[in-house]
């Protein structure tokens, strides 16, 4: 069981039209791992995360979930995965509660924590009924992050999760990540911040050398 990593990425490459964004990306993530993707602006951190979610197709290489290529076990893989992207996917005309309720309904697995409790935990108590256009960007992100509390997915992919949230929020999110990892989950996140998390591993995304054959 322990020999097969939860997720492994082998020789992954991505070309945008005829220029190569990155190539030869290799790493694997086991239960309880916390991996930070580092890299300069434009080095392809977001692209890498989107490749992991399967919404982009790699130009070369493959991604394996429990030893199986993700194109062969799509349903199982996507059910066990949670992705929060650059945009928090929050609808401005809906309230925080309605937004979260929809996000939970359209995702695969969820635990018994209620939407109200999750919003209280991320510090949105008292804001749940307000339409989201009245909330700040940081609060939008908190709505999206409340999904983490409800989700049962083992793999979390977070693209710049710390943008526009305050210090308190950063501390909360870090403890949230720590708990998830302690329960045997795994997190892959991209951020420019230095994180004070125990057991954090880093993967540096290097720009690919332009080579044509």
């Amino acid at each position: 069981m322990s020999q097969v990593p939860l997720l492994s990425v082998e020789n992954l490459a991505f070309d945008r039209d005829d220029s190569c964004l990155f190539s030869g990306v290799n790493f694997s993530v086991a239960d309880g791992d916390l991996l930070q993707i580092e890299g300069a602006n434009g080095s392809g951190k977001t692209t890498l995360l989107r490749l992991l979610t399967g919404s982009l197709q790699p130009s070369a290489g493959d991604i394996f979930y429990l030893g199986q290529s993700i194109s062969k076990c799509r349903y199982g893989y996507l059910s066990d995965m949670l992705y929060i992207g650059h945009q928090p996917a929050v609808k401005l005309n809906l309230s925080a509660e309605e937004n979260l309720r929809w996000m939970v309904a359209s995702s695969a697995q969820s635990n018994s924590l209620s939407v109200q409790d999750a919003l209280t935990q991320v510090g949105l108590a008292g804001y749940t009924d307000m339409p989201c256009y009245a909330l700040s960007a940081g609060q939008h992100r908190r709505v999206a992050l409340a999904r983490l509390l409800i989700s049962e997915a083992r793999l979390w992919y977070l693209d710049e999760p710390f943008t526009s949230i305050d210090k308190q929020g950063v501390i909360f999110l870090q403890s949230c990540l720590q708990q998830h990892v302690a329960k045997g989950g795994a997190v892959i996140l991209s951020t420019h911040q230095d994180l004070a998390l125990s057991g954090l591993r880093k993967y540096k995304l290097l720009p690919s050398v332009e080579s044509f054959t």
Partner: protein
Amino acid sequence: MSWLSDKFSSTLSGGPSKESPSWQWFYRLGSPRWFYQRSGQWLPWLSLVALLVLATGLVWGLAFAPEDAKQGNSFRIIYIHVPAAFLAQSGYFIMAIAGAIGLIWKMKMSYMVMKAAAPIGAVLTFIALFTGAVWGKPTWGAYWVWDARITSMLILLFLYAGVMALQYAYHSVDAASRASAILALVGTVNIPIINKSVDWWYTLHQPATIKLTSAPSMHMDMFMPLLVMIVGFYLFYAVALILHTRNEILRRERKTSWVRELVTAKAGG
């Protein structure tokens, strides 16, 4: 339809080395460089044959075929009109098939063929419409009549325009190819529906006009040159498609070493 192509590609994307020899030609055809070199060898011969067949058909049709009893010499425009209309229709299917191959087997080469086919088809559709209008004046007394076939042709022109517009709207070559391939496939499903609907609509309104020539009732002396012209147009289409595709290959592969070598060799020699 990448969900579809994923399934296919997972079994087929291994590349030439892993596949059985019977698939080799398919993958070689998928290599732009191979296509460019091979088509360069065929092209002069193909163009020569196309030119000969077209010239034969034209001279035969315009000078030697008998005059039409009712329409006189004006009927001779069918030697352009009918083949152009023929190719305009099949050109759309050729484009869609190329797009489908691209989507299923992720073959870049066939996307290039698809892109090259769109403007050629659109021009042929326009020629068919234009010659139809010119022919309509002496026959119907008006340049434009809402005849079923002419209306279908006009809609076909819109369909081509859509594919071309979508092709140019995207910055990313890959997204442009895949998006317009999907559109071409949707169009292929719809063309028979559109044509049948327009036919039905036309019979509903029943204007009193002469039907366009129907081939079987034509005299053999008139029909044979038409057949030659259709073959000639097919050959011409092939030549035009190959020329456009070669152009597209050079444009998309401009950064590869073989194109660079080709260009420097041309410039140097």
